[in-house]
């Protein structure tokens, strides 16, 4: 926008706006339709958040009143809430620790492949699972790992052991959540990194070869260096989503393994939808949203520090 003397700007801008409105009515109608959807289905529900400060669901409807932060104070006294908070962070931490580097390594490995039909073939199949729903992923791995009459039982018999009912075992459920997450999403991540590798200037490699760099040095100094900003951004996005851990856990776990797998939002589902303690469950949701937003803002700020530009 050009800077003009203050006195002249106001009226001309206003009339310009009006002209534009008349000329391009359709544009504003479209904006109105779309933003109405946002208003009703995104912003209006947010208003309901004030219920977190009431005792809705704990008392008869006629006696509902504001109780301040009582729900939030109660949260931290409830062992199940503390457990779900811990589980959320712990499972997310495991997923990042084990799952985050895998696509990076695999994209580098895939990039080293010279036999093109094998490379293309592998590229084609590795992200099939990404488009499957958690229900289908769960169904596949429940069938594979069933305790009797299954490939799982077959392997156990070969090893001379009693088959394990993996999905019903407290000790294994977190590991299974991490493993199925990798199974479903690692291929997709690999493709994203691979696409970024493709956009690295090929003359850099030519120059490096002239300088006598071997393949390992090329990978380290050019490919990985070229991926650095994408890695940082994806890492930040990933950390910002830590608390969103929900649908996978909801679909893949049963009450038998609730102890080690109950996360914040499955806890909110149980208290809010099944027990109808809506005020209390809203407090859980609000807590999750506030901590989640802080994580996003902090990580995004860090990204800006690191690379001068944020993700949003």
């Amino acid at each position, binding site marked *: 926008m050009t800077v003009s003397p203050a006195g002249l700007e106001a009226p001309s801008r206003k009339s310009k706006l009006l002209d534009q409105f008349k000329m391009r009515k359709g544009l504003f109608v479209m904006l109105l339709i779309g933003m109405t959807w946002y208003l009703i289905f995104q912003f209006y529900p*947010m208003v309901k958040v004030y219920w977190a400060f009431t005792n809705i669901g704990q008392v008869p409807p006629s006696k509902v009143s504001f109780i301040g932060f009582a729900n939030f104070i109660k949260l931290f006294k409830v062992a199940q809430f503390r457990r779900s908070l811990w589980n959320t962070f712990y499972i997310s931490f495991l997923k990042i620790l084990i799952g985050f580097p895998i696509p990076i390594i695999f994209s580098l490995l895939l990039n080293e492949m010279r036999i093109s039909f094998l490379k293309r073939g592998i590229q084609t*199949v590795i*992200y099939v699972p990404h488009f499957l*729903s*958690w*229900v*289908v992923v769960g*169904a596949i791995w429940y069938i594979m790992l069933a305790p009797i009459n299954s490939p799982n039982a077959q392997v156990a018999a070969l090893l001379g052991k009693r088959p394990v009912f993996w999905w019903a075992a407290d000790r294994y459920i977190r590991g299974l959540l991490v493993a199925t997450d990798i199974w479903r999403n690692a291929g997709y991540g690999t493709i994203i990194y691979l696409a970024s590798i493709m956009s690295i200037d090929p003359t850099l490699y030519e120059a490096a070869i002239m300088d006598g760099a071997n393949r390992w040095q090329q990978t380290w100094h050019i490919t990985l260096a070229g991926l650095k900003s994408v890695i940082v951004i994806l890492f930040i996005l990933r950390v910002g989503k830590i608390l969103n851990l929900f649908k996978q856990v909801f*679909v893949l776990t049963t009450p038998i393994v609730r102890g080690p797998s109950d996360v914040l939002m499955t806890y909110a589902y149980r208290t809010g939808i099944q027990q109808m303690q809506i005020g209390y469950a809203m407090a859980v949701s609000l807590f999750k949203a506030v901590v989640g937003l802080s994580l996003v803002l902090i990580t995004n700020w860090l990204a800006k520090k690191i690379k001068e530009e944020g993700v949003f």
Partner: protein
Amino acid sequence: MKETRGQKIFNVFNYLIMGLFALTMIVPILYILQLTFSGDPNLDFRLIPKKITLYNYKFVIKQGLLLRPLLNSIYLSVTGTFFSLTLTSVLAYPLADKQLPGRRFFNFLVVLTIMINLGFLPKYLLVRDLRLMNTYWSLILVGGINSFNLILLRNYFQSIPEELFDSARIDGASEMKILISIVLPLSFPILATIFLFYFVAFWNEYFNVILYITDHTKYTLQVILRSMIILEEDMGASFADTTLLDNIKYTTVIVALVPILALYPFLQRYFTKGIMLGSVKG
């Protein structure tokens, strides 16, 4: 260029590791696929059934348990996808217009909904208040716009040179007409991407279905599938022979998979372009 010994060893390991990884992705799917063509009650691991039979599929069709959920899933996915695609295009167009007053503000609102995630509870209360419980409209409306898809589409629209519609505007074409006859045809690859994203999302929807739908006749395939396999419910169909129920289970997995696999080649073609356009910088 001649390869050194070390490179050769590396290559062998590389193909081995990546090959194994790729096999892990598809072998479980192939295993279940072969189960649906096998009449064998022994479920040991194999990729080709001892004897290929269509009995399971015939049984499932005759028994009819899957028909209703399948039709429900198709109805929801098709209607939802077209609704979402229309609504997303209608909003992406003004948001891409550089002359729109308040454009930055509206775009900020969109990003805000990505950053503030209150989960399912507020939307559940809204659906209840709007009396949309037990209707597919609850799912279609709530899933109306995915902000990531909206941003993808908006970015693509922005990259179309404005001169292309200036002349149409001078000729007095309405904005809707410009969107339909100029912008959308130029945006085919990104529209295809978003179409596929929405379709896959609706087809795979599970949680909102059980949240908003309590009428069992309206359940979709995903709901039936989880009930049968993960929760191990017998779906009211009591079979004396459990292998019959097992047959239905495996067949359901495949039926839920097939549309995704059928779309997969298209997903591949447009998807990498799509994510490259939008994933890194929103």
